[in-house]
């Protein structure tokens, strides 16, 4: 492979745009993913990303920017889940499943009714190589807002995720923090729609965070590692998809999964190899202590019954 061959994609305007957009999306999603995996909201992320579909279709029909409809339906999903959960005995994951599949199905029905002239497959599977001007701006604006708000509030969000009781006890409004985090989740999903599509967005929202979580025990480092993972995989994936001619979103997700796999095996402390090494070291330690047999320890003679009568009550 020559350098020329590798640089070839960069001479196309659509390629540089795609690379920039996917790098931004990778960054925003990576930051959110740290909170999502710590809060245990993977399913919530999957739910919101599927449930925005009707919003996208409606904004298309009304000629609105797609982010508006998608974001609106993201909030509807989150509120519906919260509402139903607080008023019924059904468990949270069940409620999430019921709500998002209903909205996703609604979206599919809508698409099938209008599909004759419209192609919304780029929303289902993403198409960052074909991103238009308007979509580019929508993505950049939504992504920048989500990134800035999340980063500015990261300390309070982190405290809320770690220990909501303490957050309340120092006077933070945990109800507001909960909704801020959910809103940022919805906004991030909207940002990533154009790049990876409804179906794979959730990977962007959990894999970088999960990879980073395996690599460090410090949250500040976790953020940086996740962002590095997010950007790198976005760029490599987009680049790779040029040569494969398509399926950019899927390529990005594949690269991310590869990073996760590497971390799972090679992470310095929590990886499989490190764990094996620890176990071996512990065993060696245990056997090595053999040496000269230790003098038999005095065994405490069993205390004899002291003549107390049985407790009678």
């Amino acid at each position, binding site marked *: 492979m020559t350098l020329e061959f590798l640089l070839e994609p960069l001479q196309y305007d659509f390629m540089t745009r795609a690379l920039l957009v996917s790098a931004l999306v990778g960054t925003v999603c990576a930051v959110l993913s740290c909170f999502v995996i*710590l809060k245990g909201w993977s399913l919530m992320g999957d739910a919101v990303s599927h449930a925005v579909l009707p919003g996208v279709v409606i904004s298309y029909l009304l000629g609105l920017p797609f982010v508006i409809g998608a974001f609106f339906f993201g909030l509807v999903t989150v509120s519906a889940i919260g509402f139903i959960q607080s008023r019924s005995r059904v468990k949270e994951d069940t409620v999430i499943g019921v709500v998002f599949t209903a909205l996703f199905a609604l979206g599919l029905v809508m698409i099938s009714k209008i599909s004759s002239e419209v192609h919304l497959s780029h929303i289902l599977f993403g198409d960052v190589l074909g991103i238009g001007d308007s979509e580019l701006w929508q993505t950049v604006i939504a992504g920048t807002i989500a990134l800035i708000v999340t980063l*500015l509030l990261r*300390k*309070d969000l*982190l*405290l809320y995720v*770690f*220990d909501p*009781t*303490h957050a*309340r*006890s*120092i*006077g*933070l409004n945990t109800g507001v923090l909960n909704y801020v985090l959910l809103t940022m989740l919805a906004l991030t999903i909207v940002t990533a729609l154009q790049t990876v599509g409804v179906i794979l967005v959730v990977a962007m929202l959990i894999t970088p965070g999960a990879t980073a*979580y395996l690599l*460090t*025990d*410090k*949250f500040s480092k*976790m953020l940086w590692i996740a962002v590095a993972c997010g950007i790198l995989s976005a760029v490599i994936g987009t680049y790779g998809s040029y040569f494969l001619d398509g399926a950019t979103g899927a390529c990005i997700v594949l690269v991310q999964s590869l990073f996760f796999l590497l971390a799972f095996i090679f992470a310095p402390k929590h990886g499989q190899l490190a764990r094996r090494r620890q176990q071996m070291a512990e065993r060696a330690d245990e056997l090595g202590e053999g040496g000269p047999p230790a003098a038999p320890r005095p065994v405490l003679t069993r205390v004899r019954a002291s003549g107390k009568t049985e407790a009678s009550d």
Partner: protein
Amino acid sequence: MTHKQVIALDVNNVSVAYGGGRLALRQASLQVQGGSVCGLVGMNGSGKSTLFKTVMGFLPPLRGTVQVFGQPVIRAQKAGLIAYVPQSEDVDWNFPVSVREVVMMGRQGKMGWLRRPNAVDETLVEESLERVGMSAFMNRQIGELSGGQRKRAFLARALAQEGRLLLLDEPFGGVDVGTSEAIIALMGELRREGRSMLVSTHDLGTLETFCDEVALIADRTVLLYGPTDEVLTADNLAATFGGRSPLHAQPSAKRVEVRP
């Protein structure tokens, strides 16, 4: 001492329920004077932890009021007046935070809106860790501690908060003798600094060493509260623990009138 004039905690005729009908606290009243330590004693399930949660505003009272230094609880929390250490921490022990960062969370309410710790915060965190003997562990991930060490870490966080009222729900649960002596000594220091404390415990033997006042709680209400030596009589403890006093060999004749 000026602290003695104010009432640090005033729980007035409070009832709460967890949802599900049964009251978890029935018309309980309790006062903690400024600068004093109040012990909270009662059987399992008598409502001690519930009382703490009510004071913190986690359970909204069905009737009655709670005031901290003459203010509603939320105002007092925002002003950083209250520090609370629950009976057991309900957190994810694999969370990527160090002991030091957890203690720093005690300072978070007092930082600017960007939540950047300043030199004072750093010093306070280190001092707090020092006071509970956890300095050596400050860079450990929070889950890499024993149960008693975890308790001490969260106690350090409460210290770092510099609250004027400390609510400690069973600080001696699951800690060794040395640690519980250290905690008692620490409470003595805090008391001399003028802080007020409400401390629940099952360790009746040590009550007199650190409490100015004691509140007896039984069957989801406060039976009585008052100066330690007046409250800790055989009859009162018998009434609290349903039968015989765990502290006294034989019931004594002295009797304190139960407050309504």
